[in-house]
């Protein structure tokens, strides 16, 4: 019942939302591990590198989102495994960075790198130099060092390809992460010089202790060497790490702000811009203009001073069905149309469902204003896993392909609003045949449940985590 694609739409149009249709059977140990360490809901779907929580390439954050395991745990595990395997795991990480597409993209960096002829030439050159160096080192009798250092070669190759072929937004992050390394060469401030000297001394001490320790195979000396090397690295790179952490936080804030701005734009469109359009149409009815202006002023004041956003249905209606009734009353009062509502099932509103209703309200406003239809049908169905809202009119209709992309109403107020929340909007219309807007939103409360329970595995229900 919750998986009815809009008839006539191919079913694959409906993207799996939050992996609800994704079926998988987990080995028991992984299921167990997930129950113990899971920190958040799994998104499911194919593995994607995360954009939000990335430290380096976003592979671990992506894996965490995919498996539901804690991201810090995964990172620590990676570092430990890297040390234990003397760097082999690092290769796996960099290769994953190269071949796994970033969230929201379909192509990986590797697919772009395949066409980067100069990059490949550069990589071939670099690899041959590195290999030569390693061969010389082992020829000089430090074979153990060469065997430790060989994973550097594939890592360097992959990193060069990533550096050259990463998408623009990743380039920015990469550049910032590499900034201190490039900055070191420039020198400048005495403090930086001091830091480099201290680092070099610590590193030299540590590495010499390490190499001596290797010969003697004593235990204490190598540990001391490792500590010295680590101290050197911390002194050298500590400030840089701090800055990266700060920058990541700033970047996250910027993204939140951008989303807020989009939300405000959608609300202004729904309220102020719509009212202004109506005032223009009713220019020869002073009474109506005054009434519209008053209502808008009230709404705007409530938003600016009381923090009640226009078109926010949550305040007025606690549930989906009540929200639909609220839309009906509002639209019937404001426009001279009849809104016929049918609701099946009901549930409480959360932010996602409020966005669904806001988009539905906007679709209804559009139908009332432009379709010329006297009756608009609103059908809301609350299913166990999703809520669907259909807005249908029998008016003029339009060619959805012919709508200019800059028209805010459909693009921002309906589609983007749904997609920001993981929902979906489909618009079907043809000239002379009316319009139907189909909005679906997965139910948040059910997301975790549905995702964590492998479909068709009734014998072994996952412990509920609600």
């Amino acid at each position, binding site marked *: *019942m919750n998986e*009815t694609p809009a*008839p*006539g739409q191919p079913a694959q149009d409906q993207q799996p939302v939050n992996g609800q249709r994704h079926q998988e059977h987990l080995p028991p140990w992984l299921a167990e591990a997930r129950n113990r360490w899971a920190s958040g809901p799994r998104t499911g779907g194919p593995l994607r590198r995360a954009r939000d929580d990335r430290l380096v390439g976003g592979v671990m954050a992506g894996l965490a989102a995919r498996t539901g395991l804690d991201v810090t745990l995964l990172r620590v595990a990676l570092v430990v495994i890297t040390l234990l395997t003397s760097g082999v795991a690092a290769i796996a990480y960099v290769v994953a960075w190269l071949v796994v597409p970033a969230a929201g993209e379909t192509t990986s960096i590797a697919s772009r790198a395949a066409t980067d002829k100069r990059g490949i030439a550069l990589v071939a050159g670099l690899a041959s130099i590195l290999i030569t160096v390693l061969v010389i080192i082992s020829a000089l009798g430090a074979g153990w060092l060469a065997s430790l250092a060989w994973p550097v070669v594939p890592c360097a190759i992959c990193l060069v390809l990533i550096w050259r072929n990463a998408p623009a937004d990743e380039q920015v992050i990469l550049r910032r992460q590499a900034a201190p390394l490039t900055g070191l060469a420039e020198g400048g401030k005495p403090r930086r010089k001091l830091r480099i000297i201290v680092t070099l001394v610590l590193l030299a001490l540590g590495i010499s202790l390490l190499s001596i320790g290797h010969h003697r195979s004593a235990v204490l000396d190598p540990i001391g060497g490792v500590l010295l090397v680590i101290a050197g690295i911390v002194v050298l790179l500590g400030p840089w790490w701090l800055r990266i952490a700060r920058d990541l936080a700033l970047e996250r804030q910027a993204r939140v702000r951008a989303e807020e701005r989009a939300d405000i734009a959608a609300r202004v469109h729904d309220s102020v811009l719509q009212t202004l359009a109506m005032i223009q149409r009713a220019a020869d009815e002073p009474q109506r203009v005054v009434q519209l202006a008053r209502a808008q002023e009230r709404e705007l004041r409530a938003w600016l001073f009381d923090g009640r956003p226009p078109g926010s249905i949550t305040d007025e209606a606690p549930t989906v069905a009540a929200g639909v009734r609220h839309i009906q009353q509002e639209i019937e009062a404001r426009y001279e149309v*009849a809104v*016929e509502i*049918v*609701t*099946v*099932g009901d549930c409480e509103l959360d932010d996602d469902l409020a966005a669904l209703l806001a988009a539905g309200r906007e679709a209804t406003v559009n139908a009332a204003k432009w379709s010329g239809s006297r*009756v608009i*049908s609103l*059908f809301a*169905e609350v299913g*166990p896993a999703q809520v669907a809202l*259909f807005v*249908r009119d*029998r008016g003029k209709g339009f060619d959805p392909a012919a709508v200019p992309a800059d028209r805010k109403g459909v693009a921002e107020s309906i589609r983007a609003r749904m997609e920001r929340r993981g929902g979906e909007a489909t618009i079907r219309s043809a000239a002379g045949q009316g319009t*139907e807007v189909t909005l679906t939103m997965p139910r948040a409360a059910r997301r975790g449940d549905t995702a964590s329970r492998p479909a068709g595995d*009734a014998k072994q229900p996952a412990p509920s985590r609600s």
Partner: protein
Amino acid sequence: MTTAAAPGSGRPRVVIVDDHGLFRSGVRSELGDQVDVAGEAGDVAPAIDLIAQTVPDVVLLDVHLPGGGGQRVVAATRDVLPGVRFLALSASDAPEDVIAVIRAGARGYVTKTISGAELIDAIHRIAAGDAVFSPRLAGFVLDAFASMPGTEESKPAFDSELDQLTAREREVLRLIARGYTYKEIARELFISVKTVESHVSSVLRKLQLSTRHQLTRWASERRLT
């Protein structure tokens, strides 16, 4: 919408039962000469007498009547005069009252906001023996049958074929609820209008014959809230 004329006669005989005189005369003038209005009644008892006297093809029946609701008119008439068919009408009523009238034997339900042309069409279809589901009735029925869960692991014994809607019937009801006409539904689902009608009639039959206790439970829950 398809105009399925009543077999044998172009103008079905209609009785209007509603406690609002204004509404009765409004409907009468809207129907014009498309149907033959045999009489009007404003209460349960006079309505039963009038129907017995005139034996109309279709009775337009208000869901809410002072003397105990439209369902009593249907209940009193259906065994004596099985040929008389009922179309329930209301402004806005609680789902359980509408379902009660349908379960008593009415063959359809429309809201009073319906246009004259659509009402005439609905009367013709009722007279021809079809069921007429308005979007709201479709919603009520989906709601009533949805509250019984398909999620329950074991199917209880009373869960007979009558107590469940098929996937196709649900699909048809959902499209009706979305405001589609039978013709549009037929096009949408690649079936004929006749098939759509038979699905709707089958839903009506289940609604009337089902003894499913969920249906009653659903109604009583509704009444409580």
